[in-house]
């Protein structure tokens, strides 16, 4: 057998300019490729812009919309969204107009007769509705009712407002008036029993504000006096998204609530993913006994009843006066959620550890830190990022859920969950109080879910060949 020993002449440098050997397209790193694929996913891109928009909304919003989220506006409780509302300025101490007469003798008693001429005195507004009516002969008393709907019959007259002496034929209603339509009914009382006949007057109540209240809230121009201002119409504070059951501005609460919800929703997953990465990475990399023991412990933490421990941790970490309860909730969420990530990372590391490129690197003398930082970590990163995007909606849900059952943030700190909790009580009469925070939670969770889907598609190597 002739063995040929090659010499330097046998080799010849390739001409790099030769057609076919040149790399025509710019080479893309993994992350550049992921970004390229993500960018071509319209849904993921839309979600990304929603997330950015939400962050702007909560970070920039309170700078532009400078309304205190805890400020109560009791003139405007549970108002639906509107751009501006006007109110009639009324004097502070208007005496109630009293109309009296001497009782008509009981000679001609007609129990079937309803009171005549039930009428308004002055403009009906939210600071008082003044009613008067013509006397009925032979009554012992008058009974006044207020209803929110037209009464169907004498048994359906609504809220009993007052029982009046026969010589009093006027009444001033001040009881929790809202700007809406009411139906006032007057009934004669004979020998202690109410007659079946009644007269009803529909009244539309106008929004009004006391002069001193308007002055206090700075709604009047500087030189306004009771003489000039009373009777004029002024613009109340505007609440573009309406107000809640205490008259707090919904828009401001949503902005500040987003800070709570997004802070917990983003920070908690970020922290526990890092803890999980360290824990799972260590377990997976070291293997053997240590791995077994560490994973056993993680399994136990997973088995803990989540809600119970969430609440117990929250109570145990304590709440000083004036605290919002965000810190303990964050801590509890982190302490209970890291094992899922740790398991995921451990599985990945165990798999990557056996790869040929790790063996190759090891053979070339790579040290452990180099292996971890250069080979294992970058390869775990993709899965980790996807699990992070999916952990965010879960954390937002958990916060909302805890606040909903009243174990979350402490009032008056707003959060979307506690706003839902407030809103669900008034859901039937004022649906916007539930709908806005629920919408924000849903859109946020939706955006993060779709973003997670997009990221997974962009990173999943198995799907590469298909597209």
């Amino acid at each position: 057998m002739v063995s040929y020993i090659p010499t330097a002449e046998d080799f010849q440098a390739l001409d790099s300019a030769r057609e076919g050997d040149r790399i025509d397209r710019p080479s893309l790193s993994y992350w550049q490729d992921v970004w390229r694929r993500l960018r071509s996913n319209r849904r993921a891109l839309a979600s990304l812009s929603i997330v950015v928009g939400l962050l702007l909304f909560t970070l920039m919003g309170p700078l532009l919309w400078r309304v205190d989220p805890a400020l109560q506006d009791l003139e405007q409780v549970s108002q639906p969204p509107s751009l501006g509302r006007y109110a009639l300025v009324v004097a502070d101490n208007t005496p109630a107009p009293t109309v009296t007469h001497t009782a008509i003798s009981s000679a001609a008693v007609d129990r079937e007769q309803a009171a005549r001429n039930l009428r308004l005195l002055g403009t009906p507004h939210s600071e008082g509705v003044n009613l008067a009516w013509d006397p009925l002969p032979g009554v012992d008393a008058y009974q006044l009712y207020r209803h929110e709907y037209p009464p169907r019959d004498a048994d359906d007259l609504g809220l009993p407002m007052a029982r009046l002496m026969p010589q009093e034929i006027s009444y001033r209603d001040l009881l929790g008036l809202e700007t809406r339509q009411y139906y006032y009914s007057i009934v004669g009382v004979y020998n202690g029993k109410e007659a079946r006949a009644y007269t009803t007057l529909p009244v539309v109540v106008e929004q009004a504000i006391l002069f001193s209240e308007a002055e206090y809230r700075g709604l009047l121009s500087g030189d306004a006096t009771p003489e000039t201002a009373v009777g004029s119409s002024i613009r109340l504070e505007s609440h573009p998204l309406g107000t809640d059951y205490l008259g707090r501005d919904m828009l401001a609460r949503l902005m500040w609530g987003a800070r709570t919800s997004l802070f917990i929703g983003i920070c908690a997953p970020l922290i526990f993913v890092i803890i999980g990465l360290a824990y799972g990475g260590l377990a997976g990399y070291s293997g053997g006994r240590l791995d077994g023991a560490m994973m056993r412990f993680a399994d136990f933490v997973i088995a803990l009843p989540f809600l119970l421990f969430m609440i117990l941790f929250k109570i145990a970490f304590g709440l000083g006066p004036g605290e919002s309860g965000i810190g303990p909730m964050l801590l509890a969420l982190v302490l209970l959620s890291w094992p899922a990530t740790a398991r995921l990372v451990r599985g990945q590391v165990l798999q990557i550890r056996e790869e040929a490129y790790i063996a190759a690197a090891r053979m070339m003398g790579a040290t452990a830190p180099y292996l971890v930082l250069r080979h294992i970590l970058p390869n775990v990163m993709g899965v980790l990022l996807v699990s992070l995007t999916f952990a965010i909606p879960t954390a937002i849900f958990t916060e909302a859920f805890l606040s909903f059952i009243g174990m979350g943030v402490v009032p008056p700190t707003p959060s979307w969950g506690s706003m839902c909790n407030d809103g669900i009580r008034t859901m039937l009469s004022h649906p916007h109080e539930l709908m806005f925070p629920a919408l924000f939670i849903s859109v946020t969770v939706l955006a993060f879910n779709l973003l997670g889907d997009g990221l997974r598609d962009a990173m999943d190597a198995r799907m590469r060949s298909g597209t």
Partner: protein
Amino acid sequence: MGAYIARRLLSGVITIWFIATATFFGMHAVPGDPLLNDKAVTPEIRANLERAYGLDKPVPQQYLIFLKNMLQGDFGISFTQQNRRVNDIIAEHFPVSATLGVLALLFAAGGGIMFGALTALFRSRMPDYLIMFLVIIAVSVPSFVFAGLGQLAILRLNSLLGFSLLPVAGWGTVAHMLVPALVLGLGTMAYLTRLMRSSMLEVAETDYIRTARAKGLTPRRIFFRHQLRNAILPVVTVLGPAIAAITTGGFVVELVFAIPGLGRYFVQAVQQLDYTVIMGTTVFYGAFLVLMVIAVDIVYGFIDPRIQVSKSLS
């Protein structure tokens, strides 16, 4: 098989013991105690109460007493509900939660399998897009919002019909359960639909489906006998965790619909630090979930003979 079940049960018992221990000490680490909720009492009465409940003993000793009683199946007497045994509370209210949970699970599994199969059948066509859109909505809206909306829907429906078709809240008849169970099962249904869809699409690519097609089987037969049956397997695997999610997640629905389930008592007990009720419900739920997961694993072995139980041990 027997050895496998025994091993799983043993590890389950250890898990429950761990949960019970962690809960016990966690609970006692919380400042305050259940007697604080009572009206102002004199120190003598308080001391008597503490003696009666055994709270005067050091915590480790209380723990041993608790363990001993738990092994005998006795969780003691509630602190906040006078003279009610925890065992009675569980016996009375768990069936309510369980009924609701089973119905919700039926909705979730039935709906999930059906919708998942439909999306795969109409892949990239209108029904697919529509169902997947609804699925995304269902996983993005918090359950308490769905509960509120469900209640609102019942009210509107009743006022539209002019008579009460479904009760708005409460418990007692099947009509009381329908909407709460649907609300409760919705999240799981969405999850199962997604899972079923990807599973169906995966099975559609397999060789045996191609073989079945090549043999000239009717599409109907291929769909039901070959594709659907195989695609259901992953759904069965997640039923264990799904049962957990549904039974423990039930109490939002119980709260909104005023259903006297165990979840409500659990949350109440945690808020009032009712030690015995917390321990009783926690251990009970823990045991229930552990058993469910084991049961699902065993059932899985029966459904799919390819899975060897002994193999999944290693």
